């Protein structure tokens, strides 16, 4: 079966399956920025996941639930937490990344992430840091547009003032 473009119902199913299986993940990359409103086009979905064997097993269960026919090699690579696992089997293209360039820790990135209609999305600053660190031509071309989009996004979504205790709680939660 040839994978098609990512459809909105698949997006909802994927986020729901991750949630049901308790996957620790963030959408990242251009696809994540598009979910936030970046007016560009991409073809696949990148997921930044916490590198633990248990989280890997949860990812495998969640992906099978939404229709990925993962073989034993794919399962092993995900559970082992290989830095980069690219899946082109149907229903859509998906990259599972355990160590994206430019982001030092999953916990910290999660503490800065955005929850949008059930989608856990990396912050635009982390998305940009990752693109900048990759140094690839296609990412560098996007950088200025992403920066402009970030400025506009942050202007329209100014974070509410948070108390010190709320920030500490959030950090403690992200470390777990």
């Amino acid at each position, binding site marked *: 079966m040839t*994978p*098609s*473009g*990512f*459809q*909105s119902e698949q*997006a909802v199913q994927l986020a729901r399956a991750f949630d049901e299986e308790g996957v620790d993940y963030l959408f990242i990359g251009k*696809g994540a920025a*598009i*979910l*936030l*409103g*970046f*007016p*560009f*086009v*991409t*073809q*696949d*979905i990148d997921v930044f996941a916490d590198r633990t064997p248990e989280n890997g097993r949860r990812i495998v269960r969640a992906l099978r639930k939404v229709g990925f026919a993962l*073989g034993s*090699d*794919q399962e092993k*690579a995900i559970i082992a937490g*290989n*830095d*980069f*696992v*690219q*899946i*082109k*089997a149907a229903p*859509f*293209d998906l990259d599972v*990344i355990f*160590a*994206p*360039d430019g982001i030092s820790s999953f916990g910290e990135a999660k503490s800065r992430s955005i929850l*949008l*209609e059930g*989608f856990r999305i990396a912050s635009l600053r982390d998305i940009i840091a990752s693109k900048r660190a*990759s*140094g*690839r*031509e*296609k*990412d*560098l*071309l996007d950088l200025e*547009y992403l920066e*402009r*989009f970030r400025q*506009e*996004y942050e*202007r*329209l979504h100014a974070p509410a003032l948070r108390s010190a205790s709320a920030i500490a709680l959030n950090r403690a939660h992200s470390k777990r």
Partner: protein
Amino acid sequence: MTERDDTRPKRDEAAINEAQLPYRTAVPEEFFPLRTPEDRGWEEFRDQCRRQMQRPLELRIKYGFCRRIKPASDQISMRAFKTMAEYRAWCEENLPDYLGFKRPAQ
């Protein structure tokens, strides 16, 4: 009792709450006569960003994801790399230049 200072410029409430106003396509030219074509280009991009952010998530996904065939990359259904460096090296070695996976210095 002190008199109120009415010489201060009045706050333009509409401008401050611009995000809540109905969408406008452009700032009238006479406000910024010295804008360059590049400035106008970024204004248009900013307007695109605003429009896209106003769209529901479902439409952002509909318009934002479009699959095309990628040479080499699509030949097998899965590949895994222990390190990102191995992945970058594979991309630079195997993918055509026009896909943009190479670093500019190379």
